């Protein structure tokens, strides 16, 4: 088998398509031909379709539900209400945050569009007809929509089910609408630093309620096989194994009799981490009716019920010396969690990793407190393309640093450079307790500033402002600088779990006799291209070409247990498991090669795709040859076959970072904000596939653009949700989206087997601050320090009005 034509070392490396190459995606063949397999594509014999009756009001008591007319609709098979689920104990379900959530409204409705009844019919049209005819009588109760009023005396009690519970999942509750208080840092020392500071800047920074809004909504098909007692659920699950365990715990069906399958997923962005009433109702309906039941959200249901994000109102105080050295940071967050606390955070972190809010700066002392409250809004609080509340934290610090720079009359880039954690300080322990693994912030920032000609931009801005003063233009130029540090890759089992499940991840590899392989992971791609990139990691580890490695995820009957894909954890955790499993394969392969070459295994060295005898590379065995030998030779002391599995518990999080610069031109008479230029430098450690990294950055920046410049879900005072369709909720088209400039530095993670840190969410984390800083910067010379997002045309125009930039009368607030 040594008959292959000799090729050079470089050719052998290229053939692998391993780490660092822009390998084309293996997923694309099916997607470009319309052959993807998404959950709504699944069609099973006898399958029924479920649809929800939803509450038209934000807060009320259910007086009666009459199903009769609905049940008379041809094709309608069943109508489920809380009373039907109660005997099964499934009318409420546990949330990921230690709270409970009504599967179907139990006596009360707590937000508009809350699930009240589940109509099951032969097709989606009949189901919709049935939904129309379910009669529900409500008694209106006063809605609570302003989180700042949630804990006032006399505020309506929303959660009567837990009204007298003074202890919640995360400590004491001091009001019926209070969920938790969570603190980090040293309060006394921080208050002392503020009291003694030369300069203190203050601001209230709100991060509005938004929604991840993947193009595919949430849905599932539940199928109970009564003959073998097995429940199979295909669904849009970002964490299929966790769903299986949760499903087993709440239905009492043994876990081996539940199979969860995540087929192709049309984008997740955090929307598909949680467990939603539709999943439970479909499963119950399938168990009761004995046939498969499908439930697919429509867009309005998606935007108004499953998984909002953010809704953090952050009051900050930042202390500094007169020359701009930051000495302390204080923050209080009021977190609006809606009607149920369904935040998707690791158990011990009710405010996620918000305490990364000291950002990229060496701040000696800091304190943060977060109060979570209930309101009559949809539950959620998911990490929308970010790691658990990191976007909120990054936005907070990046706005606060700019606010401080204004107060000190310092340049925003200069104040950042002055306060950066220095390269030699890593590993760096922050005042709020995180150990940053690696970073080289100055190099990244210098490269960014040089590339965009920052000094030139500031000179141009000065000239443009003077021209504006002279009346030669009605446009203001803004330059936004943002530097972010993320915390991703949750996480070490010692402090990260979801519902008690440690947040490790896994990879199992089987090498076939002819030298190709299959690898299965506990994660699930939603567009990230795992089948492409994880095969690259393996190719480099085991010397089998990436194209000869099949990658499978998402089927709990076959994949090893893992916690899924969100929080940029796939590469830091499952990517590490992949490399480690590959190394186990290689270790066994070395023993096989030693046997075949009749040498001691210590006399062998690995080179690209083979083991060779040290000093005599002519004598070698390729991985392909070794694979065959594993299946056809009786090797003393070794089991046949070549397989490995790795469950990887990361020793630490990873800390990607980046420097972003955004240039905007604002028409003060219309509020139209043109993104003239956006430069993004990302450092995600070792780069696995530059093409995919660039694609992730483009996408994340576009989501950041959407959030900063337009996305918002609001509620009026009657509890009606606004922003619940794509007519109202801003998704940028190709026209609004600028052309992105991407760049990189590469600072590997010291604790990750291949040094990779994860990248998918960085551009959203850093991008929002850069846009917002640019808009605020455009008006800075007129005395503006901060305006709230989103910076849509209307709000920007209002800002211009307030600053007296038009002759027209000021608009009513």
């Amino acid at each position: 088998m040594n008959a292959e034509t000799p090729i050079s070392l470089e050719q052998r490396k290229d053939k692998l398509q391993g780490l660092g190459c822009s390998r084309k995606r293996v997923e694309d063949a099916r997607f470009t031909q319309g052959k993807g397999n998404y959950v709504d594509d699944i069609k099973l014999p006898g399958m029924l379709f479920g649809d929800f009756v939803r509450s038209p009001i934000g807060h009320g008591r259910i007086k009666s539900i009459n199903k009769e007319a609905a049940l008379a609709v041809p094709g309608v098979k069943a109508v489920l209400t809380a009373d039907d689920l109660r005997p099964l104990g499934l009318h409420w379900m546990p949330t990921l945050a230690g709270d409970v959530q009504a599967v179907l409204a139990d006596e009360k409705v707590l937000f508009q569009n809350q699930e009240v009844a589940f109509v099951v019919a032969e097709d989606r049209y009949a189901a919709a007809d049935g939904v129309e005819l379910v009669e529900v009588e409500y008694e209106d109760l006063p809605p609570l929509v302003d989180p700042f009023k949630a804990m006032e005396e006399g505020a309506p009690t929303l959660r009567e089910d837990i009204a007298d519970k003074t202890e919640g999942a995360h400590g004491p509750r001091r009001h019926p609408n209070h969920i938790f208080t969570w603190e980090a840092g040293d309060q006394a020392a921080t208050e002392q630093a503020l009291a003694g500071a030369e300069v203190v800047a203050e601001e209230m920074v709100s991060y509005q309620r938004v929604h991840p809004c993947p193009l595919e909504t949430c849905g599932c098909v539940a199928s109970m096989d009564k003959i073998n007692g097995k429940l199979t659920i295909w669904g849009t699950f970002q964490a299929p194994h966790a769903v299986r365990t949760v499903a087993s715990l709440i239905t009492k069906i043994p876990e081996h009799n539940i199979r969860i399958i995540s087929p192709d997923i049309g984008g997740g962005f955090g929307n598909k981490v949680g467990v939603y009433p539709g999943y439970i109702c479909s499963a119950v309906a399938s168990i009761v009716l004995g046939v498969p039941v499908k439930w697919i959200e429509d867009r309005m249901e998606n935007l108004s019920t499953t998984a909002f994000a953010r809704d953090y109102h952050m009051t900050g105080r930042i202390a500094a010396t007169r020359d701009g050295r930051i000495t302390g940071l204080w923050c209080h967050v009021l977190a609006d969690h809606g009607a149920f606390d369904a935040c998707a955070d690791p158990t011990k972190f009710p405010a996620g990793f918000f305490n990364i809010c000291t950002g990229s700066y060496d701040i000696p002392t800091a304190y943060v407190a977060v109060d979570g409250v209930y309101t009559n809004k949809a539950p959620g609080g998911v990490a929308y393309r970010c790691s658990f509340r990191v976007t909120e934290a990054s936005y907070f610090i990046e706005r606060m640093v700019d606010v401080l720079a204004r107060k000190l009359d310092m340049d925003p880039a200069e104040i950042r450079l002055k306060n950066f954690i220095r390269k030699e300080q890593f590993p760096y322990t922050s005042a709020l307790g995180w150990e940053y693994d690696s970073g080289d912030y100055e190099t990244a920032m210098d490269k960014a500033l040089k590339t965009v000609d920052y000094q030139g931009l500031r000179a141009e801005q000065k000239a443009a402002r003077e021209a504006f003063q002279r009346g030669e233009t009605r446009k203001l130029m803004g330059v936004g600088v943002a530097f972010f540090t993320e915390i991703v890759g949750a996480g070490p089992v010692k402090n990260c779990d979801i519902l008690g499940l440690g947040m490790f991840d896994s990879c199992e590899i089987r090498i076939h006799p002819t030298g190709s392989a299959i690898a299965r992971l506990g994660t699930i791609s939603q567009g990230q291209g795992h089948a492409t990139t994880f095969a690259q990691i393996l190719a480099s580890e085991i010397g089998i070409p990436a194209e000869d490695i099949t990658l499978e995820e998402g089927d709990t009957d076959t994949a090893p247990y893992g916690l899924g894909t969100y929080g940029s954890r796939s590469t830091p955790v499952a990517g590490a498991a992949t490399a480690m499993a590959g190394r186990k394969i290689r270790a066994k392969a070395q023993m096989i090669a030693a046997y075949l070459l009749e040498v001691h295994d210590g006399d062998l060295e690995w080179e690209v795709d083979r083991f060779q005898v040290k000093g005599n590379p002519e004598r070698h065995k390729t991985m392909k040859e070794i694979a065959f030998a594993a299946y056809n030779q009786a090797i003393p002391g070794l089991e046949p076959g070549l397989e490995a599995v790795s469950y990887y518990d990361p020793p630490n999080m990873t800390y990607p970072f980046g420097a972003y610069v955004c240039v905007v031109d604002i028409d003060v008479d219309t509020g139209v904000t043109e993104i003239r230029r956006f430069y993004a430098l990302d450092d995600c450690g070792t780069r696995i596939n530059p093409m995919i990294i660039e694609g992730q950055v483009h996408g994340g920046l576009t989501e950041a653009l959407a959030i900063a410049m337009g996305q918002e879900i609001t509620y009026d005072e009657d509890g009606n949700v606004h922003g619940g369709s794509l007519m109202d909720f801003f998704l940028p088209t190709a026209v609004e989206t600028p052309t992105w400039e991407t760049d990189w530095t590469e600072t590997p993670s010291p604790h990750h087997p291949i040094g990779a840190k994860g990248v998918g969410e960085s551009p959203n984390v850093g991008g929002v601050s850069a846009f917002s800083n640019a808009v605020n910067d455009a008006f800075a010379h007129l005395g503006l320090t901060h305006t709230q997002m989103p910076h849509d045309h209307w709000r920007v125009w209002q800002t211009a009005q307030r600053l007296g930039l038009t002759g027209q009368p000021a608009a009513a607030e």
Partner: protein
Amino acid sequence: MSKMHVKMTVNGSQVEGLAEPRTLLIHFLREQLGLTGPHIGCDTSHCGACTVDLDGKSVKSCTLFVAQANGAEVTTIEGLAAADGSLHPLQEAFREHHGLQCGFCTPGMITRAYRLLQENPTPSDEEIRFGMSGNLCRCTGYQNIVKAIRAAAAEMAAGKEAAE
């Protein structure tokens, strides 16, 4: 509800079926014909995931009754490859230039781009962006989609020239 008899040409084949008049074209295509390439993303004709080609125009099949497509000629993503199975230059270009990630918008995106290039075989980037603005993508930020369409346009022009 009583059903009506509908007939149309889909991807070059005659098809017929019974459907309630209120049935949306997208549901007829996906559920009766099993053509699950076009997707449903918003139900309100904003996102374009359901885009198909109907009598030489791009339409959003989630906002069209199947009755309105009676007798029409419909092309979906499944009908873009050549009879010999070779992919359309747009399908090749989307892969080559990483013009897709989760793939959910891709069938509608490519089907729309197919019509755009019929309408304007040599579009500028600005014309591509405007011409594609009825199709939303949440993953790619459009940059590589624009690149892919530009590349496919060049490829198709070269192919045409070679054929002439």
